[in-house]
């Protein structure tokens, strides 16, 4: 496995004109050649392909996937015409549904929409040595208007069965008013792909950034110059034909503790940078971070929404009068004001059409709320600015590319008393200065005027902390009685508080008891429920059933009770992607047991310590015996939010030791004295 994968994700920029750096990617020497594929023509030999080295047990295999994009002019508007030709071998019955294909098409802001201008489909079956081919007919095609914005073009192929080769080609036209970036081409998907090829011819009227993602090398990469006639009455324009292909692409795998598989998919994306039409339109889209920052700062839907906000003057005056001296208290009051009065609708965004309207409507998306927060903070003379970021499920931000669509979220950044903090007002339960877990995605762009914009780290400022302590005695019949204090801080405290505040105490306790069916709670007191800065603390007096076993003269007790880790989350020996926990983890369990009368310690679990290289993590476990008291202390600390694949082995070992130690038991023996 490629342990340096994370750092080696390679990226590549090509500006359609100024392409010089041909060494960025070197086509790999491979025996794999582009297959020769003609629509509707399949021979018996195509059913008997040589092994590709790909997983032959997959439910289906893409034999050929070919996309091409060209630009054209229709009704005086530019269009992109995307032609896709796919050939798939059905290997298992569970893949039969791949014989039905759905292609979403979209409508733009105006009246124009994308058009499907042609669909051809075939199913090929091998009967003995003969190939029979069935063609897709009109009856197998449906256009479903899902909503005003989206139409699904659907078709279902005839005679698809296990072993079939299905094949289709469609041509989709996208007017520039609907989208001006060609669709992202993924070379990799859930099933293996033998050959994936993408060609695009870009006339030099358009500058696109071409961004490669994923970690598979290209098998083929070429470009050549051509000339084409696009505009009537205008001389031919030069154009460049780009060609990318990857052979034998393995199926995309997912693993636990990752941000999103999107970060690891091999793909090519496009972003329009500039349009330059002779004697016509010249429009610069974003090229550098500096221009992007400038565009954002001047945008009606961004910078202009927080620069001045007279409608917030009254609120600001009130906050100022209530917190006349302490600027931190003022900041906190403004933050609380926004997050308590404006309700988040659950959606992500980094823009806002009108902060004033949001202020009146008392609800909005992440962009609305946080730009409004910035407006209020500025009204209070704070140095507050937006940080654009990409949430974890949206994928990592590549600093090499100044693209707004890399982002899907914005938070507030405040510089006060020499301190920098970030605020997200979508969440009423989070501690000030802490970002929700969804935002913890490496790096964000702080957008400030005067070319002082920069990238800021989104590394968590808080950990995921759970500290449990207790005092117990051994009662009869396997029961342990006592008190337990469960203190949750940082991200753990935040999630507990969110559940508690939205679902109530009964549901919160129900969740706890569901995982601990042997608990009987006698009293429960919970503190820190409303103060986000405090730890969320539960104090229980409880009885735990079946906590120890008694056999003969001996008692066997697991001192971790119900709180030990019982499963190693990392089951495989190797790992493809980094382990991304989001935030560092801190767990501790400390309990004191009073030994029953007449029993003495016979055996104790041995103490154990394990550390990760570079002090990246540590686990320690110890059981001590003094007088008639037993004390257990178990501590886990994972100091990094992300562990690279090369650290996986050590991390897995650490968890293995935790699980082992947490299963160990104390042996108590009835002493001679007690025997009567």
């Amino acid at each position, binding site marked *: 496995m490629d342990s340096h994968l994370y750092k080696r994700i390679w990226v590549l920029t090509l500006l359609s004109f100024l392409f010089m750096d041909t060494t960025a990617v070197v086509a790999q020497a491979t025996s794999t050649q582009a297959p020769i594929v003609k629509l509707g023509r399949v021979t018996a030999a195509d059913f008997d392909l040589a092994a590709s080295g790909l997983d032959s*047990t997959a*439910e289906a295999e893409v034999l050929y996937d070919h996309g091409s994009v060209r630009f054209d002019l229709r009704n005086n508007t530019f269009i992109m015409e995307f032609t896709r030709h796919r050939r798939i071998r059905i290997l*298992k*019955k*569970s893949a*039969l*549904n791949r*014989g*039905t294909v759905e292609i979403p098409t979209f409508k733009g802001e105006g009246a124009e929409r994308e058009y499907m201008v042609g669909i051809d489909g075939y199913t090929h079956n091998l009967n003995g040595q003969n190939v029979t081919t*069935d063609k897709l007919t009109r*009856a*197998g095609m449906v256009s*479903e*208007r*899902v*909503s005003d914005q989206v139409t*699904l073009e*659907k078709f*279902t192929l*005839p*005679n*698809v*069965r*296990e072993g079939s080769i299905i094949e289709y080609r469609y041509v989709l036209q996208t007017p520039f008013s609907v989208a001006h970036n060609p669709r992202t081409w993924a070379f990799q998907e859930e099933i293996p792909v033998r050959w994936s090829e993408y060609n695009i011819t870009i006339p030099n009227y358009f500058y696109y950034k071409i961004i490669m993602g994923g970690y598979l090398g290209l098998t083929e990469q070429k470009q050549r110059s051509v000339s084409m006639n696009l505009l009537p009455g205008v001389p031919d324009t030069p154009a460049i034909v780009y060609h990318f292909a990857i052979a034998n692409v393995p*199926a995309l*795998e997912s693993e636990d503790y990752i941000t999103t598989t999107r970060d690891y998919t091999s793909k090519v994306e496009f972003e329009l940078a500039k349009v330059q039409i002779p004697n016509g339109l010249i429009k610069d889209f974003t090229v550098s971070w500096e221009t992007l920052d400038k565009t954002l700062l001047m945008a009606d839907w961004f910078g202009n929404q927080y620069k001045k906000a007279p409608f917030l003057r009254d609120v600001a005056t009130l906050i100022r009068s209530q917190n006349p001296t302490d600027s931190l208290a003022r900041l906190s009051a403004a933050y609380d004001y926004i997050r308590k*009065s*404006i*309700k988040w609708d659950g959606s992500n965004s980094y823009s806002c059409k009108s902060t004033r309207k949001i202020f009146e*409507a*008392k*609800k909005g998306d992440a962009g609305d709320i946080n730009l409004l927060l910035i407006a209020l903070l500025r009204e209070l003379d704070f140095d507050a600015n937006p940080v654009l970021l990409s949430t974890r499920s949206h994928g990592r931000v590549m600093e090499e590319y100044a693209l707004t669509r890399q982002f899907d979220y914005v938070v507030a950044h405040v510089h006060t008393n020499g301190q920098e903090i970030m605020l997200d007002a979508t969440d009423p339960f989070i501690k000030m200065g802490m970002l929700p877990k969804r935002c913890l995605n490496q790096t964000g762009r702080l957008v400030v005027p005067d070319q002082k914009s920069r990238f800021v780290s989104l590394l968590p400022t808080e950990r995921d902390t759970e500290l449990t302590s207790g005092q117990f005695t051994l009662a009869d019949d396997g029961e342990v009685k006592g008190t337990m204090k469960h203190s949750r801080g940082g991200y753990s405290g935040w999630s507990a508080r969110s559940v508690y505040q*939205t679902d109530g105490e009964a549901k919160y*306790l129900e969740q706890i*008891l*569901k995982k601990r*069916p*042997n608990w*009987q709670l006698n009293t429960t007191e919970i503190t820190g429920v409303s103060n986000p800065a405090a730890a969320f603390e539960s104090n229980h007096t409880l009885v735990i*059933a*079946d906590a120890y*076993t008694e*056999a*003969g003269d*001996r008692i*066997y007790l697991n001192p971790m009770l119900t709180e030990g880790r019982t*499963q*190693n989350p990392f*089951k495989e020996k190797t790992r493809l992607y980094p382990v991304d926990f989001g935030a560092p983890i801190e767990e501790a369990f400390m309990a004191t047991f009073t030994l029953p009368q007449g029993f003495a310690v*016979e*055996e*104790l*679990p041995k103490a154990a310590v394990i550390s990760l290289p570079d002090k990246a993590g540590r686990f320690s476990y110890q059981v001590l015996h003094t007088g008639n008291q037993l004390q257990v202390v178990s501590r886990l600390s994972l100091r990094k939010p992300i562990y690279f694949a090369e650290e996986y082995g050590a991390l897995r070992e650490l968890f*293995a030791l935790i*699980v*082992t130690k947490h*299963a*160990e*038991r104390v*042996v108590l023996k009835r002493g001679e004295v007690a025997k009567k």
Partner: protein
Amino acid sequence: MKKLFLWLLALPTLGVAQDEYRASAIPAPLHTNAHAVIRRHETVFTVKAPGEATHRVRTVVTVLDAKGDDQAQLVVRYDKLSRVDDIWGALYGADGGLIKKLRKADIDDRSAYDGVSFLTDNRLKQAIFPRQPSYPYTVEFVYETTERNLMFYPTWTPQSDENVSLEQATLTMVMPTNMPLRYKEVNMKTPVERVAGNQQTVYRWAIQNQPALQLEPMAPPASELLSTVYTAPTTFEVQGYAGVMQSWRDLGRFYYLLNRDRDQIPDALRQRVVQLTANEPTALGKIKKVYELVQQSTRYVSVQLGIGGWQTIEAGKVADTQYGDCKALTNYTRALLKAAGIPAIDALVRAGNGAPDIRTDFPSFQFNHVILCVPINQDTLYLECTDQSGVMGYNGTFTGGRHVLLVTPDGGKLTQTRHYSPTDNRQVRRIDVVLTADGNATAEARNLYTGIQQESRAQALVSKSQTEQRNWLLQRIVIPNYELTNFLLTEHRTPIPAVSENLTLSVRKWATPSGARLFLPLNLMSALDPVTPASAPRQFELDLDANWDWQDTDTVSYQLPASYTPEFMPAPVSIRSKFGDYTAQVSLKDGRLIYMRQITVRRGRHPASAYAEWVDFRRRAARQDKVQVVLVKQEVATK
């Protein structure tokens, strides 16, 4: 009559006392466990003719907190046979004051895209007010539709969700006098109020002050707990087809006529079937050949069209394209069997794991699926024609153990599909473990799953790649620290299907060494957890549904490390209960410790008071599943 009409026409007009919009007017008991209160729910279904009705619903809902927001929306489904005539809505503040009225732009119109159907004309209109910054607030919706598919009359369950209480609800069914209404009341405190006029007869039901329902684990399905009125016609029309619906016989008759003579197949195909089955001496053999042909050549594509989705496309079309929905593939399979000389009957069923059985005492279209009944000798097979990989005649959790309506030329006949008993649904694990003195172990497991216990494994087996199967297993093997060295899943296509699973596991520290002792948990792979006791007095019956008919048997043989012997041997255990039985025993033989454990659980309905006994049974079983044997190293006396 006059009075009646006034009350029928009562619109959400002004001037009416605004109590129904004011949150403070909600009676206190309706706040308990409620996120929202249905203040008013008024349904008027007016049948104008056997084939036409109008359906008008007015709802007023007060949302108490954020979790009730979902109740503040309106979804009206419609299709080619159902037209939405009107949608009206308004939003009120806590004091009942009007905030705004619903605008056209607030109504979203889209296809009822379900991700499954290839072809459907189902659409929906959805009306949502912007989210409100504070609670409570109240929404009111009125909608009216014209219905032209009168196979279906309303099933009225105004309080349709957990944690929602109800203040007042009425159902009014206005019927032409010559068209008697059929109905069935379930959990209704007051019976129907019937007013007969010259032209129309009006049936009216009302419910008041129903507290919010708070579901409990393993409670009976909500459809049994909520107040409901089922209604159905005696005579009806849909797209020119007239039907009678007084009995199951009538229903079957209608479906039969609707789908009659749609089973012609091309001659070449008929010849092929004849040839294929000619050499099969038995009916079962012929059925098998035909079923295999269907499984190999066709596939399921959902098409929700044609006389309200109840008329199949012709078998000839399926022969051409080799795809179809459940009706089409069942019809096609019946046509092929006919060619082989085997008669078969469509069987309507309400399919789905955990789907409540149909209400047999109220003949109406309660089905969502059709399978094929093939009577042979004493036995009867029910063929699932939409599944290309399932075992012939195995109905499992999808269609097993429930009522079906056989569609015969003489009309419908109710009967039941096979119910699978605990011994049909087995998990048998035989595990050989070699244990070392440091507590590590290697295990060879030869496991077998049958009946409903094999369904998920069979699914994984037929659909997943080797890598995916491995990941799937890793998610399901509950051992603290292990590596899966090797695995193999194999399908056995017996009448009760089975999947065998061979695993080689390397288990780290399965036994815990402590000084001279080694603590060895006995149950390696199958230990069950206890269940959480009820935190409040149990209200509802305990429902162990068909998924609770199963039996797990484990035999684990431990080869002990040299010179280790058990310090004590656990006594054999036998726990008997009304829910099932548990036995476990350990024996020592030739240096091997043999652990044998079996648990059998049977489905059943038990009173609410039995929940504590259920918790006790599970706790006792869980305690036994955790039993450890303490091994002690014997000092070697002779040297």
